[in-house]
């Protein structure tokens, strides 16, 4: 990158907030070699807009960055360009507890946010599986969610408006503060899962919820996937759980490493009821009558169990690393898929674990192989993908750079799909500078390789 460009960035954010030393660039990188040329730490929206304008004029890639917890899931390695670290914008602009909204800067951490919200008995009902450091902006653009999305819905259901900087450096305000609002295209939600490719989110208007009166977690253990899935069906169809998770026997052993012991070997079903006291109690009673082995977890066990669930991937991956694949199937096909997939894994990948947001028909397959050695599991991944496709489902691999399966899936829904997405990208980002390494558009665009 030219020194003049770095000078211009320094002028915008100040020398202290414009870093070129290698250690910091590496923190915002993807590998030993794929690192940005410069990392800037804007302190307000105007600075973000000015940074983007510089990049726009010079055609330099700009990648917004939060805590970096999911970078390798959603971004491809890229060399050069500007990383915009948003964690300097971490203030709550307005906490309007009467209207149950909070207007926050995108770089605020999840933990810092919830700590303030709870002071008025409210919370933001999004529970990312990532660490507490992850930022609101990062949660939004990565569409992060956790087990409670079954009951609460995902990020898009808990947003009312945004302030964002467009790829041409304008500051715009999609959405607003009211829960009903149809005066614009719903760009507030459209940014969810866009991985920075359509602009940089600078502020977010969050829709909040009152804390539930009561929450109770129940645990069941079964000998096999088939009987566990039968229970999952009963629970989902006859009660209204907020979360409904299913862990195969390998996943259960990973949870045991984190200190959660269910008291039995086999396939685990963990579910959560939340809401008014009487309604939680009546549902717990109901499942206890249906399943006499149901264990209602006490406070300590509940915390341990959900913590172990949250830590599933990092604990499984350990030092070696692991490949994460995600499968979506119709709920009715979940049992069949998991049974067949487990049988397939048992043949030559016994160490692989499966954990499902069962109520949503979504399964994570954790493969004991480092992402760099993807070739070693490609065959089994393909077999699982075809099992998913047999039941009208889909498998994608999250933390690798090969986008073949995704592109095939997108194209399969209409040959015009790729062109349409390319036109949207080019329309809002004519110089293709915004996060050109985002996976969501990487397979759509040609000739946008990052330059430095």
């Amino acid at each position, binding site marked *: 990158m030219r020194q003049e460009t770095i000078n211009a960035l320094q002028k915008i954010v100040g020398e202290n907030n414009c870093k070129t030393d290698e250690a910091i660039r590496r923190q915002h990188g993807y590998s030993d070699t794929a690192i940005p040329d410069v990392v800037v730490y804007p302190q307000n929206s105007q600075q973000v807009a000015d940074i983007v304008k510089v990049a726009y004029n010079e055609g330099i890639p700009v990648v917004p960055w939060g805590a970096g917890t999911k970078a390798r899931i959603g971004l491809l390695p890229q060399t050069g360009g500007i990383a915009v670290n948003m964690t300097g914008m971490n203030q709550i602009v307005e906490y309007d*507890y009467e*209207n149950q909204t909070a207007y926050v800067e995108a770089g605020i951490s999840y933990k810092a946010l919830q700590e303030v919200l709870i002071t008025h008995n409210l919370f933001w009902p999004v529970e990312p599986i990532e660490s507490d450091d992850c930022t609101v902006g990062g949660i939004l653009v990565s569409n992060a969610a956790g087990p409670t999305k079954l009951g609460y819905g995902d990020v898009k259901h808990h947003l009312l408006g945004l302030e964002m900087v467009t790829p041409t450096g304008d500051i715009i305000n999609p959405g*607003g503060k*009211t829960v009903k609002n*149809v005066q614009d295209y719903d760009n507030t939600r459209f940014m969810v899962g866009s991985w920075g490719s359509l602009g940089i989110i600078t502020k977010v208007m969050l829709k909040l919820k009152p804390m539930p*009166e009561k929450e109770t977690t129940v645990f069941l253990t079964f000998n096999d996937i088939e009987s566990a899935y039968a229970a999952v069906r009963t629970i989902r169809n006859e009660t209204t759980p907020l979360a409904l998770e299913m862990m195969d026997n390998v996943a259960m052993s990973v949870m045991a490493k984190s200190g959660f012991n269910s008291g039995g070997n086999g396939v685990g079903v963990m579910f959560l009821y939340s809401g008014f006291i009487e309604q939680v109690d*009546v549902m717990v009673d109901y499942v206890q009558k249906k399943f006499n082995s149901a264990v209602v977890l006490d406070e300590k066990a509940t915390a341990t169990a959900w913590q172990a669930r949250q830590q599933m991937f990092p604990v499984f991956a350990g030092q070696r690393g692991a490949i994460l694949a995600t499968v979506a199937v119709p709920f009715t096909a979940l049992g069949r898929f998991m049974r067949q997939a487990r049988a397939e894994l048992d043949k030559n990948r016994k160490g692989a674990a499966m954990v499902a947001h069962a109520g949503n028909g979504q399964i994570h397959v954790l493969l004991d192989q480092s992402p760099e050695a993807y070739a070693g599991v490609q065959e089994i991944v393909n077999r699982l993908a075809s099992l998913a496709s047999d039941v009208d489902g889909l498998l994608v691999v999250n933390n690798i750079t090969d986008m073949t399966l995704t592109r095939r899936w*997108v194209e399969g829904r*209409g040959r015009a799909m790729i062109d*349409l997405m390319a036109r949207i990208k080019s329309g809002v980002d004519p110089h293709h500078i915004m996060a050109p390494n985002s996976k969501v558009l990487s397979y759509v665009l040609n000739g946008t390789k990052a330059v430095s």
Partner: protein
Amino acid sequence: MAVDYLNDLISIVGKENVLTSEISLDTYKYDAGLIYGNPDVVVFVENEEQIASLLKFANSRKIPLVPRGNGMGLSGGTVAQLGGIVMVMTRLNKILEVDPENRVAVVQPGVTNMEVQKAVAPYGLVYMPDPASQKVSTMGGNLGENAGGMRGIKYGVTKDHIIGAEVILTNGETVQIGGKLEPIAQELNLNLLLQQSEGTLCVATKIYLKLSPAPKAQRTMLSIYKTLEDAGKAVSAIIAKGIIPCTLELMDNKVINAVEEWLHIGLPVHAGAVLLIEVDGWDVGLDRQAQQIVDICKEVGALEVKLARNEKERADLWVARRMSIGAMGRMRPNYDMEDATVPRNKLPEIFKYVTSLSEETNIPIGMLAHAGDGNLHPLVLFDERDEDEMRRVQYIRDKLFRKAIELGGTLSGEHGVGLGKLEFLNLAISKEYLKYMRAERLAFDPNEILNRGKTVPDPAA
């Protein structure tokens, strides 16, 4: 206007499906609001192939085209103000699939909201959004406008319950956006952009709906207030207690009297306003929730709170709410139902303001509101043949929208921008944001054939 392309249209859909008589064009020149515009030709389509061909043809000739359901919109969204083609979608009226255990229905766009409700009810399921127009309005229209309804506060609106669509682009190509599965693929979620796009991006031919288990029980209450402002204050107080009712609807004195005069339900005709409140869920615990609401209402100044004791009483309360627009419509030759929103705790302030506008202009305004959502529906009554009245109505609109925006609200909560709100758009949308949305619009529809001049208009045109 004489149309030189009738034969092209006839070759696509057949002669019997191309209407050009004066009476036909008149019939399709308005929606449920007050904006008029004659199309040059009305075309009925029956299947995807015809729609694709028609779009491709219109696109090649750059002819404006307006897709239309049953015309229940309230912002001129289906009015052909530039002439061109109105494409009527109501013959695509099949429910293609109800998949109860996966809780998905797939429908054609001409199916009405009520038909969906009827089809899924036997499975103990509901499609949550229930706009007041549900007996007539189509799912294509519901999608395009992001229709609201009476239980948005707890269950959300259309965009929270549509999970995908098969759409045809103006170049005639079909793509499937979203669908039954969780959206796990690494791609832009275009489904989110389709919602409330007011028919300016593409034409949906199949819509994927998320279904929900029907709540097992309800408790319904009528909370009665001396003044409209008192009722407004109660709304925030209830929500602040951590109870989210499924319904929190407001009717003011004028609306109450209009309904009572017509239907004789026994509503409190001397009340300044009432709130219709409903909680739902599992039966147990509902009595306590209802009692908590009763207590809060009384605490913040309700004169009386009546709990519906049986299904008949509950049904009566709902009839009152559902018939209130019709009842108000009987009072003067015309009404204009506005659709601004404000943050909930600003309701008392905007109610006061609307009352003062009514007094200032001597135009009667009844107040109806999806109060829990901060969504106002002031019903402005007038006679459109009276020019002076029309000027005062226009004055009210102008003042109302400015006030709503000033209070942190919006121009529209559920009716859309269409043509009706264009004159106020610059109050709410910056030119930079309009530029961004136009880039999105042109990516889908580069020649702007779909609903040209609406929603995200070309500022230069």
